[in-house]
């Protein structure tokens, strides 16, 4: 309930401020990190996390559109990421001979990944969006599992004869000079690492632009109305399934784009990387960041990815502490006593601000 009111308060004067803050944070972070990179004061561990962080931020923004704005719990976001990732890897592998420059190839691959994930989202959305609540959640979970298990059994190879495809077992033989793009459970190996941080940041900005434009448009208001009261929204003529589908497909495409960038950041990628746990991880980023709050999502994603790394000195205990932190945050943010305290503090502040203005 708290998130919803926070969301509506965005509509007033704060509407533009909220948008501005999230763009400003991303750009400021980019500038600071670029300066740190130039001065060489970043550890190699931190450097290796830069691109994955941008990927997860994009995927979380997408999921927040689905869970926060559209109000549908999606437990299969990692499935869309894997569609984007393996599509981008294949496209990049095929184009390696023709488009030799890294950046254009990366962009083409990411776009292909996003489009394919969007198509998957549409196809999956048709049955999924007929359901509601926990049933919808379990079906997205099921689709995530199915996508993973399909990639575990897909073999795609590329050689001078063109593209070879096989399911369950690699039956085809490649010409000399050919390359296996996907190798079943082993996933993609020998991928050229063409992803970079700048493209990642641009992707984050594009994701923000898309989501904010959608949120504050006619369709966005329809999506939120359908979330808050399905029956009331339907009775004023909002096409529920179409608006929900819009949010679902955009969310899936963003996950696909994120996956594409992620896939091209590693030499090897196994389908198991995008399992149920990854979906849950992204959901945790979104819920901790605040439903419908994109700035919060960005911050919580970055913090929660860095937290286990910062706790590395605690070795085995770091994930245990991570779990405890997670539970404590939930207990504290939902504590009634603290909530009323917080409310009285903030309302006093707001009153003071009003009298000043």
């Amino acid at each position: 309930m708290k998130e919803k009111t926070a969301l509506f308060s965005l509509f007033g004067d704060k509407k533009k401020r909220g948008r501005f803050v999230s763009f400003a944070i991303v750009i400021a972070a980019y500038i600071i990190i670029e300066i740190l990179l130039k001065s060489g004061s970043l550890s190699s561990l931190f450097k290796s996390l830069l691109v994955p962080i941008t990927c997860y931020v994009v995927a979380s923004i997408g999921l927040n559109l689905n869970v926060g704005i559209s109000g549908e719990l999606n437990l299969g976001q990692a499935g869309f990421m894997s569609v984007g990732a393996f599509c981008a890897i294949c496209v990049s592998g095929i184009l390696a001979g023709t488009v030799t420059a890294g950046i254009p190839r990366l962009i083409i691959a990411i776009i292909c990944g996003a489009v394919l994930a969007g198509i998957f989202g549409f196809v999956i959305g048709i049955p999924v969006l007929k359901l509601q609540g926990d049933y919808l959640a379990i079906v997205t979970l099921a689709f995530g599992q199915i996508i993973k298990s399909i990639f575990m059994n897909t073999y795609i190879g590329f050689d001078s004869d063109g593209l070879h495809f096989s399911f369950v077992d690699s039956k085809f033989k490649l010409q000399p000079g050919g390359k296996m793009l996907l190798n079943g459970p082993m996933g993609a190996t020998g991928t050229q690492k063409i992803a970079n941080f700048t493209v990642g940041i641009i992707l984050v900005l594009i994701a923000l632009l898309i989501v904010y434009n959608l949120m504050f448009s006619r369709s966005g208001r329809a999506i939120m109305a359908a979330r808050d009261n399905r029956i009331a929204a339907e009775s004023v003529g909002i096409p529920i399934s179409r608006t929900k589908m819009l949010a679902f497909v955009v969310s899936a495409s963003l996950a696909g784009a994120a996956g594409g960038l992620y896939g091209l950041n590693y030499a090897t990628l196994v389908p198991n990387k995008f399992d149920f746990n990854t979906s849950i991880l992204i959901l945790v980023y979104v819920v901790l960041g605040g439903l419908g709050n994109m700035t919060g999502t960005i911050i919580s994603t970055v913090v929660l990815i860095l937290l286990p790394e910062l706790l590395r000195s605690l070795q085995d205990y770091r994930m245990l502490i991570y779990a405890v932190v997670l539970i404590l945050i939930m207990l504290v943010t939902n504590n009634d006593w603290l909530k009323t305290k917080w409310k009285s503090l903030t309302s006093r502040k707001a009153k003071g601000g009003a009298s000043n203005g």
Partner: protein
Amino acid sequence: MQFLSYLINGLGLGSVYAIIALGYTMVYGIAKMLNFAHGDVIMVGSYIAFFALTKFGLPFPLAVLTAILVCTVLGVVIERLAYKPLRQAPSLAVLITAIGVSYFLQNGAQILWSSSSKVFPSVISAGSISIGAASVSYLTLLTIATCIVVMICLTLFINKTKTGSAMRACSEDKGASMLMGINVNQIISITFAIGSGLAAIASVLLASTYPSVYPTMGSMPGIKAFTAAVFGGIGSVPGAFVGGLILGIIEIFAKAYISTQLSDAIVFGVLIVILLIKPTGLLGKKINVKV
């Protein structure tokens, strides 16, 4: 008669899923939450049974009893510490807390007992009997029998005892049952205790079937059993039983006749089809929303 032996093996696997799914469905029915930590309670149960059998050399029934006791206490403690303060919170917050508990149990187990898998001792004699042309191991028979006994006891408990009717009342309407003098918090604790105790029984069967014990062993059976609970209509006790059995049979048949690697995809595919035909699961109640 390969078919018959597959069917019985499917029933065996399905029985394990059914017992786990009962825990999910009861907790959902009463506390209206998806308890993602349930799978990890199974893992803890397996470890307890493993240590009771190997380190302390307890006889099998005593080891099972220890596992049940520890899991029951664990379930109640988790409920008290992590879920009870969130009774009024949005369901997503409870979901994330459950995920946190799941991480906590998995990583705690990893620290306490290392991440390498341990071989569960084969306590139930490895022999088998033949039914018709199919040979069935004692373990499978024991699993099916356990599931039937559990199901009968649970149905009797829910329908015949005072606590059972209090549970049903709570799942219908918490506010009204509170007015009728039912201690809702206590009922929720009892539900968690029963669910976790059932998880312990399932854990011993699971660990004996795939004789290995490791910190993440609970997550996949957990997801499958959760699917089974939804399959049968989440919140419905007979639904969890039917859903579990059907899921087990589908999984074994898919492995035997179609493809081992794709069996998971087929199981989840069938779930989606069922939910499209019957959006509240096989035995789930349709709730009409009043405007």
